[in-house]
């Protein structure tokens, strides 16, 4: 059963996930976002961001009421839609205030050799989980 992000502490590292990008997947993404500008020979930085989120959501469910607060993203080179990529993610920060958790998740998409293709940080907020009984 998939755990909830709400149950994970600061510093939690998600298991590395490998994806093989395909032209079919890239075309599906471009169609979904109606991107008429990115050439078919490459993938957009945001599509790599979507891959990173997919890897994250495969391992931990978003808590009910979760809201995406902010997003940072940097790309380092063009990526072809046939490359193999590795996604790494960790919970970089977790704080609680006024009944809401604010969580920063660090994301990286790298090539097989380990060099980063894209990295970023997603900040989400969600209602604090109820206290667990001792």
């Amino acid at each position, binding site marked *: 059963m998939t755990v909830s992000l709400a149950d994970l502490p600061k510093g939690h590292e998600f298991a590395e996930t490998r994806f093989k990008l395909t032209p079919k997947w890239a075309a599906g993404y471009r*169609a979904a976002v109606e991107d008429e500008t990115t050439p078919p020979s490459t993938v957009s930085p945001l599509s790599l961001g979507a891959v990173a989120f997919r890897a994250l959501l495969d391992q931990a469910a978003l808590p009910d009421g979760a809201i995406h607060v*902010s997003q940072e993203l940097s790309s380092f080179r*063009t990526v072809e839609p046939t490359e193999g990529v590795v996604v790494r993610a960790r919970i970089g920060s977790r704080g609680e205030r006024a009944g809401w958790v604010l969580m920063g998740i660090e994301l990286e998409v790298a090539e097989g050799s380990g060099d980063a293709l894209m990295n970023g940080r997603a900040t989400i907020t969600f209602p604090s989980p109820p206290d667990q009984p001792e």
Partner: protein
Amino acid sequence: MTQRIAGTRNYAFGDELPPVIKVLNQDKINRYAEASGDHNPLHTDPAFAATTQFGGTIAHGMLVLAYMSEMMTKAFSDAWLMGGRLKVRFRGVARPGDTVTARGRIVRAEGGRAVCEVECRNQLGDVLVSGSAEVAIR
């Protein structure tokens, strides 16, 4: 005198980037859910979403952000694809039926990069996303 920015198709500080305009509907949100693997019912299940604080489905933030990315690709091509940076806050939600417009303006150069103020608004002028985006300039 206008200061041209090298490596940016002759943009100058203060120039507006070509906007990207998209009309959202539930089908497009569902297609993004398929492509991204994010099947949160807040985005895809109108009956569930009606019970939430939003009162109906909303688009994925990353879908709205993709429109901003397309605007940057349109303006800067490879400079965006191979070395762009984005830092934004989500300030409102986009719903089926909304017209989302991504806009940007070049505001300064910093450390060999052109810095743009960027935002997405809906048809009412509500800000959905705002922040900054950067590309390297040669």
